[in-house]
C-alpha cells in the first residue's frame, strides 16, 4: 500500500471517528454523574440541523458549531427537567428525546435538503495542510483537534479536579453526596447540559466534517454508537479514543468499498453499511466477556434521585 493511500485512509478514519468521539465524551461525563441520557441521537440531529442552517445562512463554521452546541444544550435541558426535577424514567425520557430530535430536525431542515455548504477545514497554512505527510498533523478540521482536547480535558477534570471528584461522588452514591451537602440535582443538571452541548457539536460535525449537506436522520445511529462506546470504554476517557477510531476504521472501509474495486467490494454494500452496528454489538460482547463479574459502571447510573426532604 502506498504512503499516500495510507495517509488518506488515516485522515478519513480520524474524520469519521470525530463526531462519535465528541458525543461519547459528553455522554461519559453525563453517565459518571449517574445519569443515563439515551437521547444523544436526538440531540445530535438537532445539533446537525442547526449547525447546517447557520453554516448555510452565514457561512461561518465557528458560529455554526457554537449555535449547534447551544441547541444541543437546550434540548438536553428538556431531558434534565423531566428526569432530574420531575424524576421521570431516564430510559423512556431519553427515547422520547431521540424521537423528538428526529421530528424536530426533519421539520427544521425540510427546506434545506440537497443544498451544499462548505466544509469546516483546517486553519493551518496551506503549505502544511497540503503537505504530503504533515497533513496528518495539520490537515484536520478544528473539530478534530477540539475532540482530542476534550478527551484530555475530560480525563483531567474527572481525575484531577475537585469538581470532577464531586461529580464522580454524585454518580457513585447520590444520597451520601446529598447528606454531605452537595447539590446532586445541580451537578447532574450541569453534566447533562455539558453532554447536550457536546452532542450538539457532534451533530454539527456531520454536515461540517463528513457530508456537506443536510439529510433527514443523517447521524444514522451515531448517537447510539456513542452510548455503546462509553460502555466499551468502561467509563474512562482515554479508552474512548481507541473505540472511536476503531469505528472510524469500520466506516472508512465502507466508504472505500463503495468506491469500488479491490477485495472490499466482494462483500455486499448493504453488509458494509450494517457493519458499524454489528461491530457495536461485537464490541459490547467482547467487553462483557473480558469484564468478569465486576462492572465499572457508576453505581447510581440511571437511578432517579429523590431527596429525602
Amino acid at each position: 500500500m502506498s504512503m499516500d493511500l495510507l495517509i488518506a485512509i488515516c485522515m478519513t478514519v480520524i474524520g469519521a471517528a470525530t463526531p462519535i468521539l465528541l458525543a461519547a465524551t459528553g455522554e461519559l461525563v453525563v453517565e459518571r454523574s449517574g445519569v443515563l441520557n439515551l437521547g444523544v441521537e436526538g440531540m445530535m440531529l438537532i445539533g446537525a440541523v442547526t449547525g447546517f442552517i447557520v453554516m448555510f445562512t452565514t457561512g461561518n463554521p465557528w458560529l455554526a458549531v457554537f449555535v449547534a452546541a447551544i441547541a444541543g444544550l437546550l434540548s438536553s435541558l428538556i431531558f434534565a427537567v423531566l428526569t432530574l426535577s420531575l424524576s421521570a424514567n431516564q430510559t423512556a425520557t431519553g427515547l422520547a428525546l431521540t424521537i423528538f430530535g428526529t421530528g424536530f430536525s426533519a421539520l427544521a431542515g425540510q427546506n434545506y435538503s440537497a443544498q451544499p455548504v462548505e466544509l469546516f477545514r483546517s486553519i493551518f497554512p496551506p503549505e502544511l495542510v497540503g503537505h504530503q505527510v504533515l497533513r496528518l498533523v495539520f490537515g484536520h478540521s478544528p473539530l478534530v483537534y477540539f475532540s482530542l482536547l476534550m478527551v484530555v480535558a475530560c480525563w483531567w477534570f474527572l481525575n484531577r479536579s475537585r469538581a470532577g471528584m464531586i461529580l464522580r461522588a454524585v454518580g457513585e452514591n447520590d444520597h451520601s453526596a446529598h447528606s454531605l451537602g452537595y447539590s446532586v440535582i445541580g451537578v447532574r443538571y450541569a453534566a447533562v447540559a455539558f453532554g447536550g452541548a457536546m452532542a450538539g457539536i457532534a451533530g454539527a460535525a456531520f454536515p461540517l466534517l463528513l457530508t456537506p449537506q443536510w439529510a433527514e436522520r443523517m447521524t444514522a445511529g451515531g448517537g447510539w454508537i456513542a452510548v455503546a462506546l462509553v460502555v466499551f470504554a468502561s467509563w474512562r476517557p482515554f479508552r474512548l479514543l481507541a473505540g472511536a477510531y476503531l469505528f472510524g476504521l469500520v466506516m472508512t472501509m465502507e466508504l472505500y468499498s463503495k468506491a469500488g474495486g479491490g477485495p472490499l467490494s466482494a462483500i455486499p454494500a448493504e453488509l458494509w453499511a450494517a457493519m458499524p452496528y454489528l461491530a457495536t454489538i461485537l464490541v459490547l460482547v467482547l467487553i462483557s466477556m473480558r469484564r468478569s463479574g465486576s462492572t465499572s459502571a457508576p453505581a447510581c447510573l440511571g437511578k432517579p434521585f429523590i431527596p429525602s426532604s
Partner: protein
Amino acid sequence: MDANMPARLALEGITKAFPGVLANDNVSFSVQPGKIHALLGENGAGKSTLVKMIYGIMSQDAGTIRWNGEAVRIDNPKQARRLGIGMVFQHFSLFEALSVLENIALGMDAKIPSRELEKRIRAVLETYGLKLDPHRIVSTLSVGERQRIEIVRALLLSPKLLIMDEPTSVLTPQEVDQLFGTLRQLASEGCSILYISHKLDEIKALCDSATILRGGKVVATCDPAEETSRSMAEKMIGTSLADVEKNASRQFGEPKLVVSRLSTKSEDEFGVAVADVSFSVRAGEIFGIAGVAGNGQNALLDALSGEVRGADSEAITLDGHPLGLLGTTQRRKLGLCAVPEERNGHAAVSEFTLSDNSVLTARDRKGLVGSGLINSGAARNYTGEVIAEFAVKALGPEALAGSLSGGNLQKYIMGREILQSPTVLVVSQPTWGVDAGAATAIRQALVNLAAAGSAIVVISQDLDELLTLSDRLAVINDGHLSQPLDVDGISIEEIGLLMGGVHGTSQETRIVAGDDVAVSA
C-alpha cells in the same frame, strides 16, 4: 460546672411534620460542653429527623436551635460544619469506588491539597490511636474501618459537637470498646457528643445525660447512671414490657432440618459466602444464629431458602429429603419457608397489593393458583386471614404493601409464612426496625409455631432477641458457623468473642446483657 456558661447546643420547641406524621413535636433539650448526651428512642421515635435538622439536612417547621446561647439557622450541612458540628451517620455516607482520601476530601468544605490533607489525616489517626490506610479503596474495607473514615472526616474539622447516629449497630463488642475509648478522649478535650442509640446498656456505660423520645415527644431527660435499663426501656416504649411466653417444659422431636457442609460462592466480589456450614434443628426447636452484620447472614439465608442453589443435593435435607439442588418453589412445597431480612423489594413488593404479595410465596401451599391462573378470591381470603390473625393495620387485602408501616408489613410477612404451617421456617432479622409491640407479637408467633412442632432458624444481629427466643445458638463469622451452644448457661463474653472471630480466648467486655435488659424471657 459554671451555671452561666451557655449550653453548647440547645433545642427549643423543635417541631417537624411530614404528611400524616408529626415526627418531632415541641422537642427541647440541651447538650453541655464536654459532655456525652444520649438521645434515646425506639425506631420511628423521631431521633433521625431531629439530628437531620441539627445537621442542616432538613429544616424545622417551628422552634429554635441555639448554638453556644445564640439562635442559629442551619440551612445545610456546610453551615453546620462551619459552626463546628460533625456527624457520623448510621448508614455511612461513603463512596465505594473512591479512595479513603477522596472520601475524606469530599467531606471537607475547604480545598486542601491532597498531600496536606493526608498529613492531617495521619495526625488525627495518631492522636486517637486509629488505624486506617488513606489510599485504600473503600469497597475493600471492613465495616469498622468504614466507620473510622466517617469519624476521621468529622474529627478533621475539630468539631465542638459530634453527632453519632447508632454507631455500634454494626460493630463487634471489641470494636465498640475501641470506639468508646475514642469518644471519651474527645469529650475530655471539650467536645460535646450527641449519642443516638436504642441500646440501653451502652448508654449507661458511656453517657452523662440522656433525653428519651417517644412518638416525636420528649418523655424524659435523665441521668443514665441513676436509671436501670428497664426503667429507661419503659420510658422509651411507654408501657410496661410484655414478655414472650415460653413453655418451660418444652420437648424437642426428631431433627427436621439438617444442614451438612453447606458452601456457596459469593455472588458479588465484595460479598461474603457461606463456607462449610453444618447444623441441625429439631421439631419444636428454635435455633439462633448470631453475628455482626455482613458476615454471611444473607448468603446463608439465600442458600437455605433456595434463592441461591448449592452444588450438593445432600447439603440440606428436610425430614431426610435432599433439598440442596431445588429452587424456592419446590422447597416451599416440601415445607421449607423463609423470610429474608429486607422487607421492601425482597420479602414483599411495595408496589403490589397484599393479595398479590400472598401469591408471591403462598400460592402453592395455599392453593392460590390453578392451571396457570391466579385465583384472586382465594388470595384475598388468605390475605384477610393473615391480616386478622396477626392484627396487621391495613385497609384490607387490596392495600398496597408500600402503604403499610414497617412493623405492620413485617407482621404481614411473618403471618403469610407462619399461616402456611411450614415444617421448617428460616427467618432473618424478624423484628429489625419494628416497634416494640409488633416485635413482641412476632416473637410470640415464632415461639407458638415451634410449640406446634415446626423447626425454626432465627438469624439476627440482636443478641437479646436470640437469647429470648432460641433454644440453641451458633455464631456466624466470615461465612463460618461456630459450634452450637445451649442458651441456658451461655456466656455473653464467649458469644462476643465468637462474633469478633476470636476463638478460645477470654477477654473482659463492657457490654453485658444483664437480667434487667428489656424484653428478655
